[in-house]
C-alpha cells in the first residue's frame, strides 16, 4: 500500500468518494465471494466518507480512522449493513457529513438479501483485511489521506 507522496489533496472529498466507490465496484476479483467483498468495501467507504474532516484537524493527537473502523465494526452488535454503518459512524464521527456520492451506496447497503448478509458476515469476520483494501482504494482515489500523520491538511467545511 503505497503512501501518497503529494501531501495536498488533489481533489475534493466528493470526487474522491465517487472515484473510490467506482473503483470498489470495478474490482476485478477472482474470489467466489467477489460481490460480497465489493459490497463490504462500499460499506466501509461509506463510513469512511461520512467521517467529519474536523476529526483530522487536531495537531496534538492525530486521528487514524482505520484502527477505529476495525475496533467499532468488531464491537458492533448490529445485524445489517445499514445498521452497522450507522452504528460505527455514530461512534467514530457523530457529526458525520453527507456527500452526494454517498447516496447510491447508502441505498445499496440498506438491503436484507443474501448478498447483504454475506457482506455483513465478511465485515464482521474479516474486518481488518477489508479495511486494508478499502484504505488502498480510498488513498488511490484521494491521492492523499488525512489519516497520514505527516499530513498538514486542514479540510474546510466548504469541501464538505
Amino acid at each position, binding site marked *: 500500500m503505497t503512501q501518497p507522496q503529494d501531501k495536498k489533496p488533489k481533489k475534493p472529498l466528493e470526487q474522491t468518494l465517487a472515484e473510490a466507490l467506482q473503483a470498489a465496484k470495478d474490482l*476485478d*476479483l477472482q474470489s467466489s465471494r467477489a460481490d460480497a467483498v465489493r459490497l463490504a468495501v462500499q460499506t466501509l467507504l461509506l463510513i469512511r466518507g461520512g467521517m467529519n474532516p474536523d476529526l483530522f484537524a487536531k495537531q496534538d493527537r492525530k486521528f487514524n480512522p482505520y*484502527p477505529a473502523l476495525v475496533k467499532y465494526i468488531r464491537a458492533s452488535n448490529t445485524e445489517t449493513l445499514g445498521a452497522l454503518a450507522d452504528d460505527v459512524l455514530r461512534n467514530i464521527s457523530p457529526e458525520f457529513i453527507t456527500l452526494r456520492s454517498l447516496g447510491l451506496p447508502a441505498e445499496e447497503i440498506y438491503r436484507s438479501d443474501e448478498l447483504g448478509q454475506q457482506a455483513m458476515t465478511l465485515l464482521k469476520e*474479516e474486518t481488518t483485511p477489508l479495511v486494508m483494501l478499502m484504505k488502498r482504494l480510498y488513498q488511490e482515489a484521494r491521492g492523499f489521506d488525512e489519516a497520514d500523520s505527516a499530513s498538514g491538511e486542514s479540510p474546510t467545511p466548504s469541501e464538505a
Partner: protein
Amino acid sequence: MSPIAFNFGPIARTAAGGRDDTINLASLPLHVLLNALTAATSAEEFIAWLWHDLYKPAFQWAKKNDNDFSWLHIPGIGAFQTAEKIFAARTGIREGLVSTHHFKIKSLPRFQVQEWQVMSDQGDQVNLGSKVNYLQLSIAAEPALATALVRAAIADAFIEVVTRKVAAALQKALRLKGFPIERVRFEFKSVYGRSFSSPFNDSEIWDKVGKHFDVRLDGTTFVMEHVTPLSDTTGIPFDTVFTADLTGKLLTLEELINNTISLSELLVLYQDSRTIIIAVPQSQIYTIDQVKLTQETIAATRKRLNDFDVLTAVKGVDYLQVAFKSQVEIRKVPVEEIEKKRPLEKIVLRPSELMTEARNDPSGQICRLTGTPFTSSLIPSPTSLSDLFSSSFVDTEFTGLVGDISPLAHFYLLNSPNSDGAGKTGVPKRASLRGSFMLLAPASHVAFDEGQAQAIDRPLLDQGGRFANTLSRITTTTQEFTLFQQMSRRIIANLWQSIAPGEPLPLPYLGAIALTHKQAQSIKLLLPKLKQVFTDVTLHVYPFEITVRPAIEVVIETALTDQKHAGKHTLLKTTPRVVTVEPRSTLPLLIDDKVQINVTAELFERAEMLYRLMLSLPRQKRKIRQSDLWLKLILNSSDPITAVFESAQATIDSKKLPKNSSMEHAAFRDAESFWLQYFDTDSPAQSWDAYERQRLETSTTLEQFPAIMLLIRALHDPDTKGSLP
C-alpha cells in the same frame, strides 16, 4: 527443495543381440574398480582390470546383423590397436592381458578370473559372482528399535575392520613399477565438432578420438583420461571426474559429495539393518581370517558403544561377547555343494536362517522385548524394575520383564535411565538408549521407472545405431547395488554436512547418522534439513538420464517439551523404516511417547510456509509469543490478517506504547505491515486475491494436516527441550 543429480561417469555395460536389449546403470569407474578389486589375483591383473574397458566411452558401435551390435572398445583391437602396446608398457603389464578380456588367444596371457565369474549373470543379478570372495555379517535379530543403535555400531565396526584389512593388503600388493597406487582417478571429457567420414575407418577414429585417451601414474594416483565425441554438447551433462580412494581412510564429507568413493563403499555389496555383504579381493591378495575378524569387530564395536555412552559389561558379564556368541555371525559366504551357485536373495536371508535355527532349538526362547528367537546360556541376574525403569515409565506392556530377553536387547535394559549408579544425586540419568534418537543409514534398495530411461543423446560413433531405439530394460547386477548405496550415502553425507560441516559421520563406515538423546539438539537441527528427502534424484549415466529413488533406512524420534521424555522408554514405540528419496516419500517422525506422524512433502512445505509467515511476528509478552498465537488463530479459522491483529493485541506491552498511541493502533500497524509484506501488489484486486489464496490455504491446513503445529515446533522451536529431568 533443489533436485539432486549424480554423474559417476557413462554406462559400462549393455546386453545387445538376439532378444537382449538392456543396459546396466553402474558407471564405467564402478564397473572396472569392482572387477579389479574382486577378480585380480595380482598387481598386474589389478592394473589391467582398471583399463580393460578404457575405450568404452568412445561409444563406437557397429552393427553385426539385424539385431546384434558390437561395442568396439578393446585396447589392442580395431581402432584402438596401438593403445595396448603403449599403455601396457607404461603400466608394466604384459601385452595381451587386456586385449583378451573377451577372447581367448592361446599365445597371449589372460586374466585368471574372468568377467563372467565376477558377475555371474550379466542381465538380472540372481547369483553372487561365482569366483568372488564375500564376507557376511549377520545379526540374528528382528529390526526392533531397541537394538538399532547396537546393530548399527556392529555393522560400522565390521565394515571398518574389513576395509582396513583389505586396504593394508592392497597397499602391500598394489605397486606399479615400485610405486604404490593409492587412488584411481577417472576423467571423462566430451568433445564436439569433430567430423568423420562415412563409413568411419579405424585410423580416423584413432586420430580423432583414441589417441586422446590416456593411462598414467601421477604420484600415487592411477589416472585414466577418456574422451567422448558428441554431436552436440548442448544440455548434456557429461564431463565429470571420479576418484576412488583405496587406502581405507575415511574420506571427508566434501570428498564424498564431490565424486570420491571410499574403499569401504566399493567393497560393501549389500547392506540392510540385519546383514552386510562385503566383497573382498582374491586370496592371492587378501587372506580371510574369520576368527580375527570377529575379535576385532567386537573390539571396534565396543569402542563405538563406549563413545555413545552405552554400557557393554556389568558386574563381570561382557554382554557384547555374549551377544556375538548368540546373535552375530561373521562368515565367508560359502559356495553350496549342490547348486554351486549363491543366489543373492537367499544369502541376504542368512539372519532369518539363524533365527529359524534358534526357534527350532530345544533351548530356544523368544525375546519378550523384540520378538527375536534366540538361544543363550546367559541367565540374566534378577533385576528390580525400579532399577530398570524410571518412575515416568509409560510402556506398561513391558513391565514384568525378567527373563527371555535376547542378548542384543539386554543392552536396552542395561542402559536404563537408572542403571549402574545413574540417576542418583549428582549422576545424570543414562540416556544413550532412551529418549530422542535418529538413525539415517543407506539401504541397498532403489526404485526407478524403466520407461523413463531414454537415451538423451546418440553418441557420434554409434554407427550401428545401438542407441537409435528405445531400450527395453534396465537390469541389475551386484555392481548396481554398489551404485545404489553410493547415492544413498551421498544424500546422507549431504544432510550431515548441512549441520556439521567438516565433521565425519557418526558411523562413517556404514555411511550412517546415528544420534542419541545427548545429541537431541543435533536431531532438531537436522529435522528441517530433511526436506531433501522429498526431492527428485537424477542419475546422469551417459547416454542415459534417469530419475531414481534411492533408499534410506530411517528412525526419527524427538522430544518436544517433554522434560521426562528419556525416562519413558519411547524407543519401544517405533520401528526403523526404509524410505525412498522422492517428492512422494513419507518420513515417520515420533514426536514424543504419544504422537507419531508421517511427514510428507506437502506437510513439510505447509509447515515451512507458515513458519516463514511466523518469522515476521516477533512480539512476545511474558511467555506468550505472537507467532504461536497467530498460528493457533489461523488454525482455528481466523484469516491471517485478523490473526496478526489479534495476536498483536495479546502481546503488545501497553506500558511501552507511545503516549499518543493505543493498543488498536499498534495492532493495526502490525496487521498493515503484514499485509504490505505478503499481499501488496500494484493492483488492489490482485492484493485481495493473494490474501484470499493465503486465507484459503491456511484455513484448510488443520483439516489437511492435523499435526502441523507439532511439526512446526519440531522443525523450528529452539526452546524444545531434549534434556533429562
